[in-house]
């Protein structure tokens, strides 16, 4: 596939290459990590959000998550910190739209208080989410540039 480049806002910058994991609909953080938060699963992160047709039952651990925004319970930030503590949180969060208050609280606190960086870029544009598909090679650069393909 032809390489496409997108420029976003690097809120928690970093450099990373890997495969994209895509949720075309907003990602419900709390609903996705129930098995990690409440069922003692610690070596993977099976997505438990049955409303998410892209990710339900897929292992979302250590992923490069590409989505529009996050949604759901105000526990979302704490949930993210919890899975990051287990070592099964995302490696990067790439948002096509503006970051929201709930996930940002978790991402920033995890970065500052637990010194675990989850690379975070927002405002990549709706075209980014239209272009990227699960399994696509993806390269993230420090300046917020994301290459897909």
């Amino acid at each position, binding site marked *: 596939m032809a390489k496409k480049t997108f420029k976003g806002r690097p809120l928690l910058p970093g450099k990373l290459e890997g495969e994209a994991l895509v949720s075309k609909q907003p990602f419900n953080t709390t609903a996705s990590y*129930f098995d990690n938060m409440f069922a003692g699963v610690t070596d993977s992160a099976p997505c438990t959000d049955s*409303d998410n047709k892209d990710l339900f039952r897929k292992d979302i651990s250590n992923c490069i998550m590409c989505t529009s*925004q996050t949604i759901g*319970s105000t*526990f979302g930030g704490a949930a993210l910190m919890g899975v990051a503590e287990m070592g099964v949180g995302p490696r990067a969060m790439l948002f096509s739209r503006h970051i*929201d*208050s709930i996930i*940002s609280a978790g991402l920033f606190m995890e970065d500052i208080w637990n010194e675990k960086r989850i690379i975070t870029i927002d405002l990549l544009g709706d075209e980014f989410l239209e272009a990227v598909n699960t399994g696509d090679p993806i390269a993230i650069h420090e300046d917020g540039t994301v290459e897909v393909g």
Partner: protein
Amino acid sequence: MKRRKFVKTVTLSTLLPAGLSIPAGNVLAGSSPDGGKGAFRPTVEGPSGGSQPAGKAPDWVRSLRDSDMDGLGPDGKPVPGYSATGTGHARKNVDPAKPHQMELTREEQDILDGKQGEAKAKVMKTVVMFGNAFGATKLVDLGGAPHSSVFNAPPFMKSIIDVFSQCADEGLKSYAPFTVNPRPFDLYNVETQPDEMAMVFEGYPLQPQLDYTLMRIGARGMNSRSCACYLSEIGNAPPPETYVAWAESSAVNFGNSVLGLRTNRYAGGMELLCALIGKAPYFGLMTDEGRMATWLIDVRTTKAPDWGVLGAAIGMKVVEDVPFIVGVDQYFGGEVTKENMHLLKAMGSSTAANGAVGLYHVENVTPDAKKLGRKLLAKNYKTYVVDDAEIQRIYDNYPNLWSKKDGKPTRCFIGCPHNTYQEIYNWGTMVTEELKRRGQDKVKVPMHLFCSIPVRNHLLDEHPVLVRDMKRAGMNFTNMCALMFTGLKGFTEKENAVTNSNKARKYSSSRYFPDDILLEIVMTGEIPKNV
């Protein structure tokens, strides 16, 4: 997959700081509404009781699935193009190529540089980073007192609790004693049976740690626990235009709109970080520009609207924009009073739960609207007309989420957010008089009245005989969070709840009914045929 035992090995006593026991509730004739013989018996599996099958999340976490900003429409499906920052302020035209940096004072920079300790530097860094992400221009000093929604402690809350324990260890404290949302359980009046208690202890093993940590950083006592912190009995109602950093969507919504406070919507402990430095990022609903209304809501109902459904209609329409509501001022007589404030509480909390509304204006009623009138309408505002047909359309679309669709109601939940004095007085009078009229002794559906302990005590002081009659009639007072109760394991399978709260409807399987129908339901134990 590796599995850990879910909380099995954690005993409550090991989590308690020395000298502490489980905090005692303020008990009023403590008993479950049915004397402990009711239908609610959560499934208990495993020898320790309450542990779920290995590797499967327990049923009671279902209530955590949805909350504000779930991006779902009335049909439960994702709304195409849904977008909300959750701060109550939809940001547009942000240039990702231009990093934003707010201005800091010398003192703030010193704190950031660690001159007042490592923990305070981390607090400042987190708050500044958060503010920069949302375009804040500066930090402002906070007044009044904070309100926090960090209120329940399942195991995954450990990281958050650790953050605030570290702050407490370094002696950081909120700039003023703060209020906190209700606890997620009530072992004295609701979960009184061993199997129910097991679920509480195993579901919230870190609760004592959290309560202890909150106390260390400045939380007020247990009797002030309420999501309706602004009621006079609790007293967290700062003067208009005070800058605060509140969490709890319904409190933010009421504080901004009815009290005239200036706060954005916070979540995940960010409100407590702001409290620890006494400052918050200045953006969104704190600013004059951010408080301008981009929607005119023209209410044309032929009688007082169903306030919960009206709020739902507005929330789903505007998501997190600011609405200016006209056509309802006649129901308030020009003033928000202790007698009518619950109408705005019901409507506002519903806008916050069904959308992500952090501020609304009501013409001739709320303080900003009284001061500025329709000058609050932004250029190119949009209009949404709500009439009787629209209210009915929204109401008719509510799904029946009971496990047995044609089952009989087993619980009635009144008040989410927590009831005002006027509400519990109204319900007490309404139910006891109707029972008398029908020659009945008790309601046929146990009723839970969710309110803070001071509000309940207020009723006890003013109308002790009524409180006695309410208890005898099967009306149970509790200061817990209604939503956490409906999320308990086994609840959905065994209970058919009805409620007067559109917020509770949104976040649980409870069915929503107007007050007159609810009264009929609790009297007869049946859902009326024509509903």
